[in-house]
């Protein structure tokens, strides 16, 4: 487009589970592909999405909407949704890790990029990544823990960018 001023999107990423890790990176990478300017402010548990290695897991316990599916076997088998009681999901050691690896495998089977891949595209394509300094201090995170290309700031840094945003979302 020959618009002089590009559209602008400002996101706040505040959650660190795998399901919440996807939306900010999908939206940010796509917005850049649609020629928008993008900033993402990572705060609280969302800050873990800036770690060099993303350890985000799914949290199946007390999440009745989450489909529990097997990523292998015939298609009919893969489409079965297994009703697993909360008492098991919450108490069996390693259940989250298993559910996470199944979910990641399903994503891969369906041709979905990994969170790391999407994050790399975001950084490469110039998404402004702001880490929340206050949360870092509270949780004891260091800038060296994070991928390159992250700048640090607080509410004012985000709001300065968001003040001129056309789209603002809290994820």
């Amino acid at each position, binding site marked *: *487009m*020959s618009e002089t001023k590009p*559209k602008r999107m400002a996101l706040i990423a505040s959650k660190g589970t795998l399901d919440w890790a996807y939306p900010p990176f*999908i939206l940010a*990478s*796509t917005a*850049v*592909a*649609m*020629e928008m300017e993008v900033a993402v402010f990572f705060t609280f548990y969302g800050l873990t999405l800036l770690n060099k290695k993303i350890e985000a897991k799914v949290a199946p316990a007390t999440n009745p909407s989450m489909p529990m599916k097997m990523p292998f076997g015939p298609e009919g088998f893969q489409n079965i949704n297994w009703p697993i009681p909360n008492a098991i999901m919450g108490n069996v050691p390693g259940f989250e890790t298993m559910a996470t690896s199944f979910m990641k495998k399903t994503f891969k089977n*369906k*041709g*979905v*990029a990994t969170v790391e891949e*999407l994050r790399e*595209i975001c950084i490469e394509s110039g998404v402004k990544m702001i880490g929340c300094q206050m949360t870092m201090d509270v949780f004891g995170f260091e800038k060296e823990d994070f991928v390159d290309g992250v700048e640090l700031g607080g509410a004012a840094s985000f709001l300065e960018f968001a003040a001129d945003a056309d789209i603002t979302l809290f994820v």
Partner: protein
Amino acid sequence: MNDIAFNQELDCRGLNCPLPILKAKKTMDGMSSGEILKMVSTDPGSKNDITAWANRTGNALLSSGEDGSDFVYYIQKS
């Protein structure tokens, strides 16, 4: 639809949202104004997404069709 001459071809079969858009954008960045990209996707969501992306970026979606389980797009760079 198959008569359109194109400069580059991009195979996005098996890829899901948002990869077809991201790859189309990246390929388009290496092309010159007026050149045509043929893109093939198996993602049914790509139909609306490519249209929306073309609208926003000003690239022209010359043709959008289906060939078996493939969705085939011809996009001209603005």
